[in-house]
């Protein structure tokens, strides 16, 4: 695939920006405004007067990240009531995936009404763009993006690939170790 190149022009440097002092003061004005607005909001709330909440700094990673109710996080493969995977390997998620991070191979299911099931199911989180199309496309509600895990970084790219057992929480993800041959 050919890369497209966009040329971005830098803003011209006028005398006012080259003096620098003016820009420093403009920055300080913004900082001060935020300080005063938040001081005012926190003070109002502390006095029980209500109004909009002031900004709070979250001490991530010491404190856990607060995720929205509909945040798309790591994938999860769901199971039927009998514990078998819901996935029928229709490959719609693999087809819709714009990042091509899903790889599925199929086989015959021992259950006749199910007919088809996944033999292997891999998601390469290093490629995933977390768009959620896979969960949207699934006709049997087998894949969700609600594991609520966002700390997924690893030492090697290969460790970013999750297999079916790992996505179903049947097997813990192998911890990633620094590669000896980076």
């Amino acid at each position: 695939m050919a890369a497209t190149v966009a040329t971005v022009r830098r803003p011209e440097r006028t005398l006012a920006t080259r003096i620098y002092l003016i820009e420093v003061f403009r920055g300080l004005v913004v900082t001060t405004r935020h300080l005063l607005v938040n001081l005012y909001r926190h003070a109002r709330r502390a006095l029980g007067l209500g109004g909009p909440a002031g900004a709070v700094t979250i001490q991530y990673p010491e404190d856990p990240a607060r995720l929205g109710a509909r945040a798309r996080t790591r994938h999860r493969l769901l199971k039927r009531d009998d514990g078998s995977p819901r996935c029928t390997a229709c490959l719609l998620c693999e087809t819709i995936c714009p990042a091509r991070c899903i790889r599925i191979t199929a086989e015959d299911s021992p259950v006749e009404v199910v007919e088809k099931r996944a033999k292997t199911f891999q998601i390469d989180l290093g490629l995933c763009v977390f768009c959620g199309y896979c969960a949207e496309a699934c006709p049997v509600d087998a894949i969700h993006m609600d594991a609520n895990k966002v700390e997924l970084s690893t030492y090697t790219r290969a460790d970013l690939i999750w297999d079916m057992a790992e996505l179903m929480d049947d097997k813990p993800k192998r911890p990633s170790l620094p590669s000896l041959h980076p």
Partner: protein
Amino acid sequence: MTAKRVTFKLNGVTLEAPEGQLVIEAAKAAGVEIPHYCYHPALGNPGNCRLCVVEVAGAPKPMVSCRTQVREGLEVYTDSEPARRAQASSLELHLVNHPLDCPVCDQSGECGLQDYYMKFGRYDSQVREAKEHKRKRLEIGPHVMLDQERCVLCTRCTRFTEKITKTSELGIFGRGHKEFVDLAPGQRLDNAYSGNTVDLCPVGALTDKDFRFKVRVWYLDQTPSICADCSRGCNVSLHTNTKRPWHDEGRRLARVKPRHNPEVNQWWLCDEGRYGFKKFDEDRLGRVMRLIPYRRELAWETALDELASELRRELEALGPEGLAVVASGALSNEDWAAFKAFFVDALGCKRFLFAPQPDQLGIEDDLLRRKEKVPNLEGGKALGFGSAVASLSWERLEADLEAGKIWGLYLIERDAARFWGAKASALLSKPRLVVWQGPWKGRTGELAHFRLPATAHIEEDGHFTNFEGRIQAYQKALEPLGQARPDWSIFEGLRQRLGAAQKAAR
């Protein structure tokens, strides 16, 4: 006898057609698609699917266009409101008991129900009743799987076994909504053309066992080609999977489907040609090798230089009588031309063997299959190798090899070692130079001095001449493996090297 031409109106457009032609055919010729399942030009028009209904001016109710003939002044509407409504209602009836298991059905993506629903249906289902369940996942033959629930009872498959193969393995049983397609008692769908029922089936009732769950059809690319499994030269379409190599166990060629050619294979393809494609991804050669005196990989230029100089040395010392060339009818016409220019014109070689080995001869029938299981013996004959076919026989070659009369053996795509069996290594150790050239390694590939990888016909453009003398083109569907290059370019490379040396000697 030519039928009288009459004028009739199709969707308000005045058209001309032979009198008595079916409206569905006349519409197709005019580029108007009428949905249909049961009608097939080769299998007749039972008119049982009721999907091709159209409005005919003056008729009190919709008419099936596969049983209405064109006559002077006929006025047909395929896209009027009543016609569209009738077609959609027919489709809805077909889907009453359909399981809608498209996610697990191999037909999805090329299914008549899906396509027609999007083109002619788009209704909101009124069916509230529970679906009738039938048997699924039945292996009815070595190549075909049956799912009775998905069937629309168009009877194309039963008519195929009845009219084309005349084996009548399939039938329709039961009545009403409990009607189903099944094998006749005690039968199996194991005729030599059983794969065609899968093509004929407009829905997912009959699917390929071989292709089952391998690749989704929308990942496949199609390339027009010619079947190389016998001298009939059936027109085929190669379905290749190159973009997602993790499917189908890494095979590049996923399946072979027939292409319609009224003069060669009509709509059909035999099972040998249809399911013989796995060889293109197995035991292939990709590297130029010299195995004797010691094993090493070579660049093409080096290999051709070395081979040309050895051929020249032996030719000058021992003459062309001791060089035997074994080729098969798998070469294209282009290859044959370069073959002749090199072996006959440049080397003066006289000992050729083209006669098919017994393992290249198979069953012949009066539908498609031919006895010679190679595509292009005829192309060689056209270049004058017709009489040469008899110049050397397999017995003679064996005797000459044993007597030490042959210093060089050039084998092209004919795995002689497999044919000779246990005595192969003794026979192939006699000549001073054994060259193996072909797409596959085979057994000979392990015993030769030089091993030259050639492309298979699916990896090059070219032409085959079939047994009737019909020249047909095939196209490149896949990239060559590794260093492999077409046979003609190998012959040409050798010829140029020998020619240059001869010129220098003069």
